[in-house]
């Protein structure tokens, strides 16, 4: 099996998800995929366990030093945001109280390692506090988008024919709307709360997994073991749920990793234009935008640490996604 864009651009960019189609239309991409799909049967249909695929991928993954470092960065950031506040307690919600203890816009120094922001909140504590929202929304919306997109793509690819055409045209339509415009329209109509932000970001992000899994399904549904289940009278939902989705798990995991990075970026962009997580919560994008308002005063500590956090996490997730994809390809080659 090869990727649809196997000879396309450098893999390190997310072009995996961009699925640059053959010039003539997506129909051709698929037939090529089917054509290239090997007819080798993985060891015994249902027994191709999820753990097996993931464990094999894991073995290749750990050989990639950069990816291991990236995992370390992600683990560190998660600990920093969620365990950090217990070790380094700061007031991050009551802006009246906080001004009694310190003043606004203090440069880094004693008591405030990274200074304070325009409301007098300690910046180091605020990074943890805002990071919680960024990471939660990033993970959760990537999860929702992946689950929905996977089901959508599997159904579309499995049933094919007119249903497939309609479902894929819907994806085309959503993909041609510039994502931030759609996102802002949704946020305007459904007022922001953290949960709604998760739903709304997932709503604009399920399209790529839908396409990827559809492609995967198209090649999987003609495999002999799927036909065997059909002959034995296995239901359609059983084929999709027990065979097609578990066998696409590698693709799904790779996409989900990239999507976490994208979701964090989308939330940061929303926060930056002022439509992020509502107060008293905050997120990295909102913090950055507040810092920018004071940029003319030279309050660098309100901008650089936040920017570095966003870039670090996003780059780390992208590297992990790349390494996972590489290990997936190696696994496929070994098969």
């Amino acid at each position, binding site marked *: 099996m090869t990727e649809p864009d196997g000879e396309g651009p450098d893999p390190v960019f997310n072009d995996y998800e961009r699925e640059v189609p053959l010039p003539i239309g997506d129909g051709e991409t698929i037939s090529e995929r089917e054509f290239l799909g090997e007819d080798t049967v993985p060891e015994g249909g249902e027994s191709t366990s999820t753990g097996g695929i993931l464990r094999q991928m894991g073995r290749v993954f750990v050989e990639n030093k950069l990816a291991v470092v990236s995992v370390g960065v992600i683990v560190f950031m998660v600990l920093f945001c969620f365990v950090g506040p217990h070790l380094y307690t700061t007031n991050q919600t009551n802006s009246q109280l906080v001004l009694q203890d310190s003043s606004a816009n203090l440069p880094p120094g004693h008591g405030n390692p990274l200074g304070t922001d325009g409301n007098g909140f300690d910046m180091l504590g605020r990074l943890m506090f805002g990071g919680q929202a960024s990471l939660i929304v990033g993970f959760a919306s990537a999860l929702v988008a992946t689950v929905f997109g996977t089901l959508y793509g599997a159904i579309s690819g499995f049933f094919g024919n007119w249903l497939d055409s309609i479902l894929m045209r819907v994806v085309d339509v959503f993909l041609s709307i510039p994502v*931030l415009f759609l996102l802002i329209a949704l946020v305007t109509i459904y007022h922001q709360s953290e949960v709604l932000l998760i739903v709304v970001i997932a709503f604009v992000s399920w399209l790529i997994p839908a396409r990827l899994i559809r492609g995967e399904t198209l090649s999987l549904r003609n495999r002999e073991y799927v036909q065997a289940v059909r002959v034995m009278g296995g239901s359609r939902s059983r084929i999709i749920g027990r065979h097609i989705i578990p066998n696409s798990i590698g693709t799904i995991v790779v996409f989900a990793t990239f999507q976490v990075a994208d979701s964090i970026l989308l939330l940061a962009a929303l926060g930056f234009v002022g439509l992020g997580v509502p107060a008293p919560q905050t997120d990295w994008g909102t913090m950055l935008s507040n810092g920018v308002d004071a940029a003319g005063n030279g309050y660098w500590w309100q901008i650089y640490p936040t920017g570095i956090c966003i870039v670090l996490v996003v780059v780390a997730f992208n590297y992990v996604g790349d390494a996972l994809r590489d290990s997936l390809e190696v696994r496929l080659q070994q098969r």
Partner: protein
Amino acid sequence: MTRFLVRRFAQALIVIVGVILITFFLARLIPGGEAKAVLGAKSTTAGINRFNRLNGLDQPLYVQFWQYIEGIFAHLNLGYSYKYNQGVRQVIGERLPKTLTLVGASVLIALVIAIPLGILQVVRRNKPIDYVVTGGSFFFYAMPDFLFGTLLIIWFAFDLHWFPVSPPSDASAWAVFTDPRAFVLPVVTLAATTIASFSRYMRSSMMDAMAEDYIRTARAKGAGNHRVLYGHALRNALIPLLTLLGLSLPAIVSGALIVETVFNYPGMGLLTVQSAFNDDIPTVLGTTLVITVATVIGSLLADILYAVADPRIRLGGE
């Protein structure tokens, strides 16, 4: 080629109708209804009923949709902004050309820089310059545009005073030619990410072209390095870049929204953000619809260029 174009036009039309459907339903799915969103939380039932009757919202859904489509195509009616107290089309007015200028200038600059960069990397592949450019494009690819724009403002507007923070708000779209200095930072910000991905793509598509049989044929015929590179490989490598351009347009336009917000550039993106703050739903939906149609037309143009440029499509039936 005709078949390709007809099919591509049909695709674009389906997408546009689909987007109209989406904005139509989003307006109908406002929690509490459109009337309440306009009249306020304290509106009376009688007031809401009257609003619905006046705006045809008491009609069956398919009638409403027909009226919506008719309004858009026959009268260019995109809805009414109660916040600005004028039609959404009037509100958008001069802003669409401004966004188009920003996006157009950035794409042009991105192509002008990315193509030579890609070629340079192929000519000097696995040499230091190749690694430097690769590293640079990774950096810009990972850099969120809002952060990059902010840093540019801090460094080049606040610290060095080389460029103004934002173009004057009354400047027309043509000011990009008369007063280009003010457009440098926004255009550079928007172009940076695009250059990063385009040059990577250019590099790999050049590499692919160099591995093709026709290159070997050209070499066998005695063509020199220069001729092989620019006469054969480059012309073939440019074709997929056009596809990428068409596919990247929605993302670039999305980036324009951020850039407009960072630099306070009064285009469609800034209008959308400001309207979101005002809870001005008709304007947000109107700008989304208009910018999407513009994007779809842009992608269509890129694909037409593609069809013209690629003899396999220009001469072949399909």
